[in-house]
């Protein structure tokens, strides 16, 4: 099945900003569809202005070309809007191991420091180094860290 080979190839396409997450972990691939011999991959941006979106689109096209799966049409879908709830369970574990706290609820008390596991943390800013992250600090181990925003 072509579709299954496409899904398999997508497992190796990583987010350029958070290279431990694949596009499947991130939940940005909305469908792989065989349209009468023409394979279409639908992706959705995490944030309207996220510069990684265009890189992801090109990376997907290149990965599929390497597997001789081209020509595949990679198209953008906006609705329904991406939510951090689409992050896979595996993706959440990878994030935490990479030093970025996974999104939980909107309250600071549910965020766990990715360095020491403490919930004794404080928010420095709702905006961090990329659109998808907020900036926190652990009050116990004193390390700063990023939190994947809940959106």
């Amino acid at each position, binding site marked *: 099945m072509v579709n299954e080979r496409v899904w398999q190839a997508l497992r190796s396409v990583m987010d350029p900003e958070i290279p431990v997450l694949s596009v499947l972990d991130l939940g940005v691939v909305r469908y792989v569809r065989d349209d009468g011999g023409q394979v279409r991959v639908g992706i959705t941006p995490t944030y309207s202005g996220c510069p990684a979106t265009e890189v992801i689109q090109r990376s997907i096209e290149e990965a599929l070309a390497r597997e001789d799966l081209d020509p595949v049409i990679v198209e953008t879908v906006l609705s329904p809007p991406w939510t951090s709830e689409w992050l896979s369970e595996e993706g959440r574990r990878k994030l935490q191991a990479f030093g970025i706290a996974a999104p939980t609820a909107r309250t600071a008390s549910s965020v766990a420091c990715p360095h020491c596991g403490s919930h004794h943390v404080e928010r420095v800013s*709702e905006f*961090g180094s990329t659109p998808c992250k907020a900036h926190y600090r652990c009050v116990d181990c004193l390390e700063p860290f990023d939190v994947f925003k809940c959106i």
Partner: protein
Amino acid sequence: MTSSEARLRYVLRLADTSLVLGQRLGEWVGHAPALEEDLALANIALDLIGQARLLLSYAGEIEGRGRDEDALAFLRDAPEFCNVSLAEQPNGDFGRTIVRQFLLDAWQVELYEALSSSADARLAAIAAKAVKETRYHLRFSAGWLVRLGDGTAESHARVAQALDALWRFTDELLTPDALDEEIAAAGIGPSLPGLRARWEARVGAVLQEATLKLPAASRYPWHGKRGVHSEHLGHMLAEMQHLPRTFPGVTW
């Protein structure tokens, strides 16, 4: 049935407001009072420019003359821009930027919430995405307005003065013209009188917490959304458009 001309003009109003405001915030990069605020303003600018790109691309498709988002952003002159006049007002100090941002964030949250159920499916999709981002922007600007308003005598005086200076531009956001009415009647955009009530309630509550007085109503009719701008927009566009106009077709 609305004409595609009306739809195009309306989408350009939304797009240009986000683009111009995003460009203004971009002027802060490297100059904000603290690193966290520098990052926050840049992040908000990025969201706004991202929203503008989606809207401008859609406008180009409605127009059907082959203009893409770049042609619309970089190759139109000030009278062709349809942003509300408030968005183009200069940054001033950090407090003034926060006041401008707060007034527009509160408006965009209401606007995008309403547009999420627009009869225009493409606009509804863009708005449903944008509203999630805009709620973050509003939390940031409202939080800072309270800190500055309810802060020192100096910070209070500065944001109070900025609020007085910028308030006269808010009527344009909330008073419908013929195009707004046509768009509302078609179920594409919200009824602005209804939006005004929600905006005033939201803004009033934050101003109270910030110990700031609601300025007196000003009905001077600004017409940015009809292409009649303050002198500031031309200067801003000169900088924003300089590169692609000097080197047509330039790429990174």
